[in-house]
């Protein structure tokens, strides 16, 4: 690595285009809505500019604390948390199976896990509509099973015991949103978990089993504590992605399954309140940064652990 002062011209040619783009078309837009978040807007959503900056206020942030908005934020948080927990319950055995699989199986299995997230996010999300809608695959399967049970009951003479099948309302509600969140984020949890479990020294498990611990005890007292850095890293990443999502609640959610992402978009669009939208954006970003920092800090601390 060289000092930039020794090759100023080359450094400028290499670095400046990127620096320019990053500042002009990313940092300045972000800074702009950061300023917006302290401003007020008029009826049609135009920001009221004051040359003396005298109308700067925290009103937009205060608005986030109103009950109705707190409710939506709370809904995002618990939906994100629930999706993360389900991802963990599904992803941990998967990561474990891949990490403990024979070497020649590992890469194909990993590829199978990451392949879905190279397909378009929107397409992956709307694919669930065909499954969850009233006349979708899931309801059709349930109806089939239901009809078989009804036929069976008919055969033993209690034909009218069951009312006709009523399709379940599975789409455009919060459970559908959570299914979608689990679906799009599962690989983000499996990969860090796998990376940790892969490095894991299996002789710890052998030692534990040799010393008489049961499989369950070995799992909870040896494997889980030692895999904790991977678990934390994966769950934090999944949670960040889940709470900040816009598309999933928009496509699979109903009118009252708003999440922060939808609320932000709505402020800039129909609700015509950009300051509030900007304030929410920054609250979401601060949360993201805090969690990423936490993740990095925990990762740095766990480096001391010998694997």
């Amino acid at each position, binding site marked *: 690595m060289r000092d930039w002062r020794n090759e100023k011209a*080359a450094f400028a040619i290499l670095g400046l285009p990127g620096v320019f783009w990053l500042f002009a078309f990313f940092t300045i837009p972000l800074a702009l809505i950061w300023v917006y978040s302290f401003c007020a807007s008029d009826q049609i959503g135009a920001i009221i500019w004051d040359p003396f900056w005298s109308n700067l206020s925290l009103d937009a942030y205060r608005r986030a604390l109103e009950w109705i908005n707190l409710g939506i934020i709370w809904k995002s948080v618990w939906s994100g948390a629930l999706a993360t927990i389900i991802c963990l319950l599904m992803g941990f055995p998967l990561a474990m199976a891949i990490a403990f699989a024979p070497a020649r199986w590992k890469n194909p299995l990993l590829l199978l896990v990451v392949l879905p997230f190279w397909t378009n996010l929107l397409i992956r999300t709307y694919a669930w509509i065909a499954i969850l*809608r009233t006349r979708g695959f899931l309801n059709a399967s349930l109806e089939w099973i239901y009809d078989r049970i009804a036929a069976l009951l008919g055969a033993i003479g209690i034909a009218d015991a069951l009312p006709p099948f009523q399709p379940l309302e599975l789409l455009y509600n919060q459970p559908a949103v959570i299914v979608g969140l689990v679906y799009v984020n599962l690989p983000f949890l499996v990969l860090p978990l796998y990376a940790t479990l892969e490095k894991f020294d299996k002789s710890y498990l052998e030692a534990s089993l040799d010393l008489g611990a049961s*499989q369950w005890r070995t799992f909870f007292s040896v494997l889980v504590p030692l895999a904790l850095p991977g678990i934390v890293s994966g769950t934090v990443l999944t949670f960040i992605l889940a709470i900040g999502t816009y598309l999933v609640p928009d496509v699979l959610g109903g009118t009252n399954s708003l999440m922060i992402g939808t609320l932000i978009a709505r402020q800039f669009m129909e609700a015509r309140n950009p300051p509030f939208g900007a304030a929410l954006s920054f609250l979401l970003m601060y949360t993201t940064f805090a969690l990423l920092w936490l993740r990095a800090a925990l990762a740095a601390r766990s480096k001391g652990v010998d694997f």
Partner: protein
Amino acid sequence: MATDVSIAPPLSIRRARRKPRPTPLEYGRKRWLQIVVAFNFLFLYFPIFSLIAFSFNNSKRNVTWQGFTLDFYNQAFHNQGLQEAFARSIIIALCSTAVSTVIGALLGLALYRYRFPFKGPFEGLLYLPIVIPEICMAMAMRSFFGRLGVPLGLVTITISHIAFSFPFVAVVVRSRMSGFDESLEEASRDLGASPAQTFFNVTPPYMTPGIVAGALLAFTLSLDDFVITFFTSGPGSTTFPVKIYSMVRQSVTPEVNAASTVLIALTLTVTVIAMWIQSRSGGKSIAS
């Protein structure tokens, strides 16, 4: 004689030889774990496969298989809105890829070669477009163009796509360069090449796989993006994913599934090529 009997191993061992029981650590052979893994893969793949399968299904709305047809591909292919949106997406993706590959590769090289003040914070800033929620970036870009009075359209979409793509290129190129052997440059200088000759003849060939992989990544990112595109597009600048979205809003038809399948096939092909180039050149996977 009785010795014959003693040669045959006890029954339990014979049975074990035929089909050895999984040892305690062979989790992959535990039935319950196999079921969990199978469920996971079913969950991951059923939605995509059913979507693809029903783009070939000879029925407008049923959930049952009615026979194979390419009618919906034909229909999607002749849908003028879809056609235009597809052409627009490709143009945007090509422009965005060209610009983000150049500035991203240069920046990646600068980050690899030079020590400079505030390098740490700058790298943090470079990662921001990758880590912040898409909706926040979308709203920032939209407000920014609104404030400047730039009409939303192809140009604003392309600028935004470059803004979130080139950091990926820079990261990929930089990680490729981390395996670069500086003694190659020294050897070139020792053998009498000028600094400029060394720079143009030694470094770029080594960078190439990283640049190509970064470019392909930028292409798929641009082609696939929905959220940022949706909010930085104006009337008449509908891209392919945005068009698919507006069709889905009305109804999920086999025609949308056909259009989606085309997009999936295109992105997967590009990604597989990128992966192949990276694995051949021994670089790090872009998936991680």
